[in-house]
């Protein structure tokens, strides 16, 4: 284990602050929190994907021992919900917090039962009688597009909620006379599957009118704002606390309908009310992702230069457009990112959003990932149809270092992007030419080996102009720092990471800047009474740059204030002082050192006239001025069993460029975890509905999360240019999940000898179909 020189932590895989509690079972997750007088809630949920409700009878439930209250739609006195965005052409149906006259998805919440124990609450749920009249379900994209199928909502005339076509460059001209390569792909719905499901504790204190809401949530301030608006509760009396989070992957960035019901219950009863969902609820009624149908045409030259892409993306957003989850935005991000670091000059993107009787579509780690999926698959298809090597096709289309800075077709500036270099290095690491030879020999023996590449970039946080073409900005990131009276540092961040290690990485940055041991720094997060405002919280792989930059700046300011005080105490110019190991001394004269604790004590307890008492700061960091991209190339080597269609990953190599790593082990952990999810998406996971709209994947018996025997050891090499600026750490949270699926899928198609994947996941059955088709074509 490397031990960093005291005070210099950035770049070292220092052990995590979080592990003291994680490894001893002393984490404090939502379900671990018990408040005095707390009641327990459970939800009655629709077993049907689509039904009319002709009546709800709670009489029997109220008689169940331990049940204190049963609330349904009529009892809540809340406004109807609709999506917040005022987007021209976007149909925004209204729907109640608890279903009243219609249920539109399996798991749709119909009533909340509040009881003294969780057992009693669930007993109460069983006793609620709901008179359902099942209706035909809108179960597929095609049914949603069919104008003869009745709209799911009374206040919008269609199940097509949004259509938008956007063109860049001149695709018509590009396609004229060009060779066209096409793919139609129906990726499956997947579920985020954090190991900890959702939950909430609403704690209303009647004496003060204060409402405290505990929720495992990546954006506590965002949740607070949404709750306040819908509950009509003053923000100065609404506090959101996100405790330790057991994973999220983007799922826990929402305000749930259940949250509102909990708050009403707590206000009504004057007691805390806790809800902890079970896995069946999480799989069925939380959010799903990646449910998009893709049709891609690529206009190419005979040499494999990609002239244009024409993409039709149809996104199945499920039944309810949640207030803060704008489905069109997923389409916009995918379109915006589609050119990536390829030299694309024309793009046409037709986006359609439809509603069906399914769980709502939400954000999942790299929500725009379909752009990398479609692009990396079609690049390999182009190679196959033109008789070219897939690495060579990438080489011919990726921008070079000399061309940068360059502009993506969709607007953002590309600078410091090393896609081509990562591709070459990945090809080196897998000994590409030797592999092709091995593949030939193996095929002669009837063994199917394959290799797949995937090259991608992600805006982590992206260049200053990244959001220009999307019509909004993410804004700067604030951090507050307080040097405590004993010389220890508290850093307050708006980040609320679901286990990604911010408590450690931000402390590494702050401790290194201030010149103190790591354990003198505490990172405070998750409590809206304490942390800076941010609607977005954690997401978009921003934290490595934005939060680290903000923590750095806030610490620097407080350090300068401390040095001013120290300068006065030592009668030496602050510019000549430095701090190391929590001691302040003139540079080169450690004998005169005083402790940072003494400096702090002076600042707090005996500030001099004109001196600000205490030592605190608040700084906003606006992000990279240049670059801001992470990315890389994944190479996946597989062997496909021709009898069973099973795919074994023999080797998985990543060449990644995320700038400087604050904590390399944390960075690699993010990459590996993301790849595991990507492998799951490619081969195993399916949040499937049948043709009648019944949900088929409510348990881990049906929804196959990869285990340690499915995920191989992953080789990771880091590449980076000389840093362009001081805050040269870039995010890496989402890249693995984005890049892995096409790498795996390309490898399988390469192994079977060609073919077009139409459906995911690539189950053994589907692999055998591909193989049969490839054999039939005679490849």
């Amino acid at each position, binding site marked *: 284990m490397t031990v960093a020189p005291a005070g210099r932590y950035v770049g070292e895989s220092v052990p995590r602050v979080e592990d003291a509690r994680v490894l001893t079972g002393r984490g404090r997750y939502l379900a671990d929190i018990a408040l005095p007088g707390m009641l327990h809630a459970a939800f009655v949920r629709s077993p049907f994907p689509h039904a009319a409700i002709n009546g709800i009878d709670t009489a029997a439930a109220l008689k169940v021992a331990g049940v204190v209250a049963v609330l349904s739609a009529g009892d809540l006195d809340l406004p109807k919900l609709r999506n917040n965005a005022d987007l021209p052409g976007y149909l925004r149906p209204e729907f109640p917090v608890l279903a009243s006259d219609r249920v539109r998805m399996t798991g749709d919440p119909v009533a909340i039962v509040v009881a003294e124990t969780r057992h009693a609450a669930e007993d109460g749920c069983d006793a609620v009688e709901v008179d359902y009249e099942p209706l035909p379900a809108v179960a597929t994209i095609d049914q949603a597009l069919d104008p003869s199928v009745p709209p799911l909502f009374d206040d919008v005339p269609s199940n097509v909620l949004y259509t938008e076509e956007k063109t860049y460059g001149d695709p018509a001209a590009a396609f004229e006379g060009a060779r066209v390569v096409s793919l139609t792909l129906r990726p499956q719905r997947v579920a985020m599957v954090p190991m900890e499901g959702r939950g909430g504790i609403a704690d209303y204190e009647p004496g003060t009118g204060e409402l405290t809401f505990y929720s495992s949530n990546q954006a506590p301030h965002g949740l607070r704002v949404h709750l306040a608006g819908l509950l009509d509760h003053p923000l100065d009396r609404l506090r959101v606390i996100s405790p330790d989070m057991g994973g999220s992957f983007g799922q826990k960035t929402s305000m749930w309908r259940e949250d509102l019901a909990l708050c009403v219950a707590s206000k009504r009863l004057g007691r805390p009310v806790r809800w902890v969902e079970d896995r069946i609820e999480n799989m069925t009624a939380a959010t799903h992702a990646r449910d998009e149908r893709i049709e891609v045409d690529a206009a190419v030259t005979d040499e494999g230069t990609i002239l244009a892409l024409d993409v039709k993306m149809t996104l199945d957003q499920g039944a309810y457009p949640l207030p803060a989850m704008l489905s069109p935005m997923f389409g916009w991000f995918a379109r915006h990112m589609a050119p990536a670091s390829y030299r694309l000059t024309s793009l046409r993107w037709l986006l359609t959003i439809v509603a069906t009787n399914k769980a709502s579509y939400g954000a999942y780690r790299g929500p725009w990932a379909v752009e990398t999926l479609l692009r990396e698959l079609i690049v390999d298809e182009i190679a196959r149809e033109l008789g070219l090597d897939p690495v060579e096709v990438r080489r011919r289309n990726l921008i070079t270092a000399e061309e940068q800075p360059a502009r993506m077709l969709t607007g953002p500036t590309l600078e410091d992007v090393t896609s081509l270099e990562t591709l070459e290095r990945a090809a080196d690491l897998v000994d590409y030419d030797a592999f092709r030879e091995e593949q030939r020999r193996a095929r002669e023996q009837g063994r199917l080996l394959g290799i797949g590449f995937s090259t991608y970039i992600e805006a982590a946080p992206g260049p200053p102009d990244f959001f220009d073409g999307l019509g909004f900005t993410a804004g700067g990131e604030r951090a507050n720092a307080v040097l405590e009276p004993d010389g220890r540092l508290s850093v307050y961040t708006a980040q609320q990471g679901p286990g990604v290690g911010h408590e450690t990485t931000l402390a590494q940055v702050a401790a290194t800047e201030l010149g103190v041991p790591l354990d003198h720094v505490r990172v405070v997060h998750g409590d809206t009474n304490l942390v800076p405002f941010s609607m977005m919280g954690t997401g978009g792989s921003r934290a490595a740059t934005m939060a680290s930059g903000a923590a750095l700046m806030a610490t620097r300011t407080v350090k300068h204030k401390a040095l001013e005080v120290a300068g006065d105490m030592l009668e030496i110019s602050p510019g000549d002082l430095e701090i190391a190991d929590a001691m302040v001394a003139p540079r080169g004269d450690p004998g005169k050192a005083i402790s940072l604790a003494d400096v702090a004590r002076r600042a707090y307890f005996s500030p001099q006239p004109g001196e600000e008492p205490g030592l605190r700061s608040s700084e906003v960091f606006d992000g990279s001025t240049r670059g801001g991209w992470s990315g890389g190339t994944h190479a996946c080597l597989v062997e496909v069993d021709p009898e069973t269609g099973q795919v074994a990953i023999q080797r998985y190599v990543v060449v990644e460029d995320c700038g400087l790593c604050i904590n390399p082990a944390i960075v690699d952990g993010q990459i590996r975890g993301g790849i*595991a999810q990507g492998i799951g998406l490619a081969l195993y996971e399916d949040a499937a509905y049948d043709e009648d709209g019944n949900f088929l994947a409510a348990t881990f018996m049906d929804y196959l999360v990869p*285990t340690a025997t499915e995920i191989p050891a992953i080789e990771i090499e880091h590449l980076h240019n000389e840093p362009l600026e001081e805050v040269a750490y870039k995010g890496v949270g989402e890249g693995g999940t984005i890049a892995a699926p096409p790498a795996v899928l390309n490898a399988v198609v390469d192994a079977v000898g060609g073919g077009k994947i139409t459906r995911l996941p690539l189950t053994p059955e589907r692999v055998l179909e591909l193989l049969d088709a490839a054999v039939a074509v005679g490849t």
Partner: protein
Amino acid sequence: MNGVRRSAPVDARVTLADFLRDDLALTGTHLACEHGVCGACTVLVDGASVRSCLLLAVQVDGADVTTIEGEAPELEPLRDAFRELLSFQCGFCTPGFVMTAVELLRENPRPSDEEIREAISGNLCRCTGYESIVRGIALAAERGR
């Protein structure tokens, strides 16, 4: 219960997991599926790993139960190794993995990589991709020699 004699009345239908968490306030054992697949709720009963979500509390009457909050000779080397190698992220699956690893190293002090992966294949982790956990167990095993 973790080396201390405890007794409590319990409803017949209460699972061991709920009993640990709600009645004994030992919330280190986590529930992530409650149908016996994910292994997050793994504890040791008379030294053997069990899914506490699938056991009724009454079934451990008279037994020795060890949870993540307890002690075992294998625990400290495992914790040290996991800490050094940053094996875990969100921590929700962690207690289940740790207890499974305790049993593994007890039964097989020199597991191969493949044996480690097999042994933990009944524990789901969504954050790490497993490799850091496998390396942590291997490091603890190596130090245990």
